[in-house]
């Protein structure tokens, strides 16, 4: 504790302090914030609607004069408007599906790891079985049963992503529960679930947050993949995955259709990965105090 005066006290505060000194993390957070603001507020500001067809400018390139700054798609709709609205869907899917994975995965993994024994074996076999289920098969089955629906994408992706989260949390819990402060809580008589909530979950949150920042890009990629196959969002609503899929079909005559949504998606994924890396460093207790 040589520079204790400069360091905040709480473990979370110390991680934040280290994160702020990491330039790539701060840049990533700034760009990410910008993308979010653009996607949320942008569609209200720009002159064109995402589903309005301009009959006089179909599949035109970037053009300042017409107000279609980044061109239009084969149906004459403004690409920028569609990219920003698509971004809303992609970001929402990323966020919600990851949160679903977070809540289920952390509770499942922490309980399995803490209780141990047969319960642990049973709970982790459930995870193994779900792991073995082919993901696309699962998605197609859901679509057939319930029809195409954006909520289904959240459910489908969340149902798959929590498995890895549960394994990570269980592993962390297994090493935590041998620590003496957990034994102290047991000696006090704190009930098992309270120990999990009060002592285990806060202490596994570090690796979990790191994994979360890596899950969000993964989820967005899966959504893109599902949409690319035509199982995702429905026209005229769109997402980055749908836009990229359309752009790929028109790559020879209209490369800008791929470039704009591709850049947005790539930037978001890059920023989240950078942030995840930086968070891992910031939360690592071995890296000084």
């Amino acid at each position, binding site marked *: 504790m040589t520079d204790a005066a400069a360091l905040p*006290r709480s*473990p979370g505060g110390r991680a934040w302090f280290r994160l702020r000194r990491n330039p790539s993390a701060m840049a990533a957070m700034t760009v990410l914030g910008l993308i979010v603001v653009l996607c949320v507020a942008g569609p209200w500001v720009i002159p064109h609607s995402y589903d309005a067809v301009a009959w006089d400018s179909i599949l035109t390139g970037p053009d300042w004069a017409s107000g279609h700054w980044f061109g239009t798609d084969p149906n004459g709709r403004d690409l920028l408007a569609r990219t920003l609205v698509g971004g809303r869907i992609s970001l929402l899917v990323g966020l919600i599906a990851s949160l679903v994975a977070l809540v289920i995965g952390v509770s499942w993994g922490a309980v399995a790891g803490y209780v141990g024994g047969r319960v642990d074996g049973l709970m982790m076999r459930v995870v193994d079985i779900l792991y073995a289920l082919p993901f696309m098969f699962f998605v197609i089955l859901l679509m057939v049963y319930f029809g195409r629906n954006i909520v289904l994408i959240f459910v489908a992706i969340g149902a798959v992503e929590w498995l890895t989260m549960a394994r990570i949390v269980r592993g962390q819990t297994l090493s935590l529960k041998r620590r003496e402060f957990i*034994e102290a809580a047991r*000696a006090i008589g704190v009930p098992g679930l309270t120990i999990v909530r009060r002592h285990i979950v806060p202490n596994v949150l570090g690796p979990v947050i790191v994994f979360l920042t890596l899950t969000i890009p993964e989820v967005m990629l899966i959504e893109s993949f599902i949409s690319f196959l035509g199982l995702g969002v429905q026209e005229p609503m769109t997402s980055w995955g749908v836009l990229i899929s359309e752009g790929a079909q028109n790559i020879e005559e209209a490369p800008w259709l791929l470039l704009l949504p591709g850049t947005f998606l790539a930037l978001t994924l890059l920023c989240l990965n950078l942030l995840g890396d930086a968070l891992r460093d910031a939360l690592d207790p071995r890296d000084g*105090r």
Partner: protein
Amino acid sequence: MSRPILSVRDLIVRFDLGRGLFGPDRVLTAIDGVSFDLGAGETLGIVGESGSGKSTLGRAILRLIPAEAGQIVWLGQDLRRLGEGAMRPLRRDLQIVFQDPLAALDPRATVFQSIAEPLATHRPDMTRIQMREAVSRWLARVGLDDTALDRYPHEFSGGQCQRIGIARAMILEPRLIVCDEAVSALDVSIQAQIVNLLAALQRETGVALLFISHNLAVVRHLSHRILVLYLGRVAEIGPAEALFADPCHPYTRALLAAVPPPDPVAARGRRRAGLTGEPPSPLNPPSGCAFRTRCPLAIEICATTMPTAEAIDDDALHLAACHRWRDRSTQGA
């Protein structure tokens, strides 16, 4: 000794290590038929080498580790027969202080949260303000002040963390605290402070202590009675003065010989019957007396018959499990 608050009878703790690659199930017997009594306000020192089962014994009594057989009678109730739910209200009387003071505190909890946890668990009637007052009072009693309340464990030294751990153990005013190597990880000067703190708290509150340590000097300073554990069995138990004045088990003598003399110059030239070799594996203990492989007095009977505890004095307060305790004067001659 008045009526004991804790009576341990023939306690056995085994760990199943699972099947080896080819061999049968491997079972480690960590505690093998230990019996003793503990009176209210008494300190029983438990000494022994690493692996003798000291810590296992303490944890088994608090039911942090399941015992396989025997009785743990606490105020007339056998703790082994109680479910965890029935055990919970009793836990406010049974506390533990750990060896590694920093590891015993949740790194993400403030000192207030750590010390208040027993109150939050057993005293749901208390308000947050009352808890803060109680915690602050106990911080003062263990020699810390209110500035510690909202700080985190990593900001404190080992000795300070141990004071926090003691405050947490004491806040419900329990009747028994298991001190599991509570001072071993601390500097010698801090050790003395913590030992004196424990002794003072015992005088004030009448709490009984199970003081587990490998450091005989510390144990002697604090304990009314001493239990010597070897490979999960009681080698010798007795009042501290009697045991130090007339150690009857050769293992006790060897432990005493290993304590550095206060005056090395005066002790120079005196023969010391130290221990040689490693303790045998508890996976495969020797037949008969567990100590015979390292014992200078071992004879045939030691290999064939397990010694039972025999009374040394008339009141049967001092017991030793040795076939040859009557021949103790021949050692080191």
